[in-house]
């Protein structure tokens, strides 16, 4: 299971990466593995503002559907339309090509409260 260092992780299996002013978000390798083949992805419109922990979309496979939660609150500035077109990208490259949204955070310090790679690994082990 890939858990890149340098990223932050949520208990709902999203990852968050600081990229300058923005925070890029996707689902972890664990999440995509649990889901199996992705069949559907619902992403928000660019411009929407959502709080931390609010659902921003839905990801579906044949056997499961899960809400996607904001790791930090803010405005949606980018949405990965390419991933929505080719859903296999998410499974193949969950941390790179399979990113889902980019947020302009209202409160960047919210990122600090998330798990780091080691803590996420521990979290997965305990589950």
């Amino acid at each position, binding site marked *: 299971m890939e858990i890149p260092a340098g990223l932050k992780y949520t208990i709902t299996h999203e990852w968050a990466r600081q990229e300058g002013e923005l925070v890029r978000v996707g689902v972890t390798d664990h999440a995509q593995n649990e889901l199996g083949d992705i069949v*559907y992805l*619902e992403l928000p419109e660019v411009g929407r503002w959502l709080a931390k922990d609010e659902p921003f979309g839905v990801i*579906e496979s*044949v*056997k*499961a*559907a899960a*809400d996607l939660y904001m790791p930090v609150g803010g405005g949606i500035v980018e949405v990965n339309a390419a991933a929505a077109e080719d859903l296999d990208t998410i499974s193949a490259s969950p941390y790179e090509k399979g990113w889902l949204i980019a947020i302009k955070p209202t409160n960047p310090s919210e990122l600090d409260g998330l798990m780091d790679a080691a803590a996420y690994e521990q979290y997965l082990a305990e589950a």
Partner: protein
Amino acid sequence: MSYVALTPEDRELMLASVGVDSMEDLFAGIPAELRQQAQLDLPAPLSEPELLRHLEELAGQNRSARELTCFLGGGIYDHFIPSLVLDVTARPEFKTAYTPYQPEVSQGLLQAIYEYQTMICELTGMEVANASAYDGATATAEAALMAIAHTRRQRVVVSEGLHPAARSCLQTHVWSVEVEISRVGLEGETGQTDLAALEKALGRAGRPDLGNGSHGERAVGRPFLADDAACVIVQHPNFLGVMEDVEAICALAKQAGALVVVNADPISLGLLKPPGDYGADIAVGEGQPLGLPMSFGGPLLGYIACTEGLLRRLPGRIVGATTDGLGRRGYCLTLQAREQHIRREKATSNICTNEALCALAAGAYLALMGPQGLRQVAALCACKAHYAHAELCKLEGCEPAVSGPFFREFAVKLTKDPEEVCRALLDRGILAGLPLGRHYPQLADALLVAVTEKRTKADIDALVEGVRSCL
């Protein structure tokens, strides 16, 4: 009667292989005090001949539409059921099957439902349909919830022309999830939805219209949320049998950014412009007229069809086509991730068992009828209803209650109490219609009469004669 298939010897052998001495040992895990109080006080069992006699007696205490000439409507109609439909639904491979979760062994049932979905789309002019809902009333409530989920708005605007039971179900369904219902009345003259009131209801913010406080109107005490309307819900033809100005209603709704939910009688769709053609977003209705007996109100068939964009909001089962490893075409339940068995509390609905066999009946009915047959049924209904209307309105003391155009059902105003008229007609073996005062206080002097293709000229003339002798 017992359908158990174990002999005493079988039981002995099986108890031994399980490793217990007696049947009671298997229930030892149940606290003794519960087991001691568990005796059932039920009537002594009946053998099959006795059971038949008993049920025939009970059935005999009813006077059905075989005996009485039925002019009752209000969502359930006495239509002709072709014989093959009964034959198809009697097949045990369909009837005794469970939901087709194992597609390889259920291709027949799945294909039949796929065909039904297709036919509902054709009938309604919508792009996708589900495999059924419980009935037209709950289908309407589900459509409202779809609109709310999709638009993220918390208010629905409902015409009083929508079936009272559908309005009641809607009320029950949304009461627990803090949705406001704005009611729009009917124009006294035409019996159609009051467009000016509709425009106002769509445009305004704030206070809800709490209605007359009758059953189901329990919006009190809930905090009122965002004022924009998620959807407008109308029935076409409406409960009074009147055809609505659906184009105008859709235009108003679109202006307000609200979705349009149309509850449309399926037989009427053999003749009338389908909801998809005039811009509806969701079409729902009661499918009972499509090959199901009236059944004292159940089981029925709710159909739900919608535009492509709302596909993932659809509640319930959906059958889709795909291929197997060898490229062979097959069918399976799909988009199940929306459903309760996967999505659980986030499901689009909690619906599990629906009305699959009834959908099968509807599919068989529509296939047997074909476009010409369905059109002919609808045309016969329209002709006979208009004949009945004309003849009744020739009577002194009887006149149209509303002026709007109607399809197979209409409301007439009587100078005598409609309840009394119905009682008198019952003595002549006729179910004259539904006194509207029960649901619409402003129409306490009106009777709702439905005429299907099964009613002959003689039936109608007898109705007219019966009413005449009352007035």
